[in-house]
């Protein structure tokens, strides 16, 4: 018989390393052709940090995203940004790039103020142009930078950011482990075959508070992939170790989800802006995976009326638990 169930998983997750300094630095050089070079130690492993950092620099400097070149993760030339881990790079390297770009921007604004003869605080940079208040002027950013260079002024900046944390008290465990947190709730719908024990995830709805979604498509990608990894964690993936040796070191024995195992995922982005984040952004990497297995396990409990305490919920485990509960009912004379 096939049984359906729904389950919810909720989580909060600290962004950055726990109770430790974990700074990141960046350099931004605004060149006289109006293009920008960002130097960052932030390694983009596919999550899209180089795209995000280019967007932050472009937004801050008032130029097109396409005009920003990100040089990332090259220890020969880039400043330390710490690890791409702990869901921290958008928040921490994002802030470092924002700060570096802000300083470069100040140089351009000072130059533009001198040309236009207006106070710097009335000047804005947008779409490659210098703006006076709400109005574009005839002056381009490129022209201002050329003028600065002709006077020997370089329009560059450096920045770094370290989240405000404290070390945890070894006696009480108290302190400020993270400067900000991500929050999420996921709902899973499953169908369980009570004969074979196969759990099929039919749908996942995943709502994530990420602060500002600097690149919504990228955030969706992170959420969808987190759900896929969570399905693996809930149903498939198990490292079998015997006398210190991994027994299943291959994709045919350590199963991870294929396209056939992943249902439609409906990401919902919740933008609760983080005051200390770059443009209000936090992080989404690990949070996307955290609640999925709980939601699926709760959905299986809803379908079968049975609680599982060991992952993954392999067909063998599910069938054994169903059998055990039947036998118990028979013993109880039900």
């Amino acid at each position, binding site marked *: 018989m096939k049984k359906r169930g729904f389950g919810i998983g909720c989580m909060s997750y600290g962004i950055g390393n726990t109770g430790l300094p974990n700074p990141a630095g960046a350099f931004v050089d605004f060149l006289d052709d109006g293009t920008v070079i960002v130097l960052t130690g932030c390694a983009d492993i596919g999550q899209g940090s180089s795209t995000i950092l280019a967007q932050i620099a472009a937004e801050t400097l008032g130029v097109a995203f396409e005009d920003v070149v990100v040089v990332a993760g090259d220890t020969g030339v880039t400043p330390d940004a710490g690890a791409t881990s702990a869901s921290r790079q958008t928040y921490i390297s994002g802030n470092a790039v924002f700060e570096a770009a802000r300083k470069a921007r100040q140089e351009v604004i000072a130059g533009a103020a001198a040309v236009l003869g207006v106070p710097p605080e009335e000047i804005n940079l947008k779409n490659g142009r210098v703006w006076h208040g709400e109005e574009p002027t005839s002056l381009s950013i490129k022209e201002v930078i050329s003028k600065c260079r002709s006077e020997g002024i370089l329009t560059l900046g450096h920045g770094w950011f370290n989240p405000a944390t404290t070390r945890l008290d070894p006696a009480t465990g108290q302190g400020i482990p993270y400067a900000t947190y991500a929050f999420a709730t996921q709902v899973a719908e499953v169908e369980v075959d009570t004969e074979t024990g196969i759990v099929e995830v039919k749908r996942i709805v995943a709502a994530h508070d990420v602060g500002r979604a600097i690149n919504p498509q990228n955030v969706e990608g992170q959420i969808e992939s987190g759900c896929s990894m969570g399905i693996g964690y809930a149903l498939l993936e198990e490292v079998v170790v015997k006398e210190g040796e991994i027994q299943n070191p291959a994709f045919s024995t350590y199963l991870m989800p294929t*396209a056939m195992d992943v249902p439609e995922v409906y990401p919902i982005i919740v933008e609760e802006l983080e005051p200390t984040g770059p443009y209000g952004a936090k992080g989404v990497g690990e949070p996307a995976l955290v609640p999925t297995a709980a939601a699926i396990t709760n959905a299986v409990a809803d379908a079968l009326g049975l609680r599982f305490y060991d992952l993954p919920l392999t067909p063998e485990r599910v069938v054994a638990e169903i059998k055990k509960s039947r036998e118990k009912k028979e013993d109880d004379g039900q």
Partner: protein
Amino acid sequence: MAAFHLEMKVNGELVAVDIDPGMRLLDVLREVLHLTGTKEGCGEGECGACSVILDGELVDSCLVMAPQAYGKEVVTIEGVAALGQLHPLQEAFIEAGAVQCGFCTPGMILAAKVLLDHNPNPDRQEIARAISGNLCRCTGYSKIIKAVEIAASRIKAEAGAASD
């Protein structure tokens, strides 16, 4: 060991090379022809990163001995963009955000191409099955499936326009 004289067509061009007959097709593509778009993942036919099209069929090039490709036609990811113009699948992958680390992408695009070559109107289930031999850890497959759907509708629209 005597060298094996391998002649095959790769991305439309005739290729003749003398190779160690113990080489895999994957090694000839990457090490001899320097077509490094084809990736080696697991090396045992489980991940699909080394997928290429051999006489119209998707194969794991790590499981094909190079001499088996004699006289056959191989298409790698480098041969998918005709005359520098991206294939609709490649455009759709970029547009849908279907690429993250990129390691599975060449194999995914070739797997999807074989599907669309045989079935221009695949549903979600058929797309999932067609790419189920290609593992992806980054994307969760959602945007890859969406990209294949976008490409299928574009190819259909182009074919419709061409026949008008």
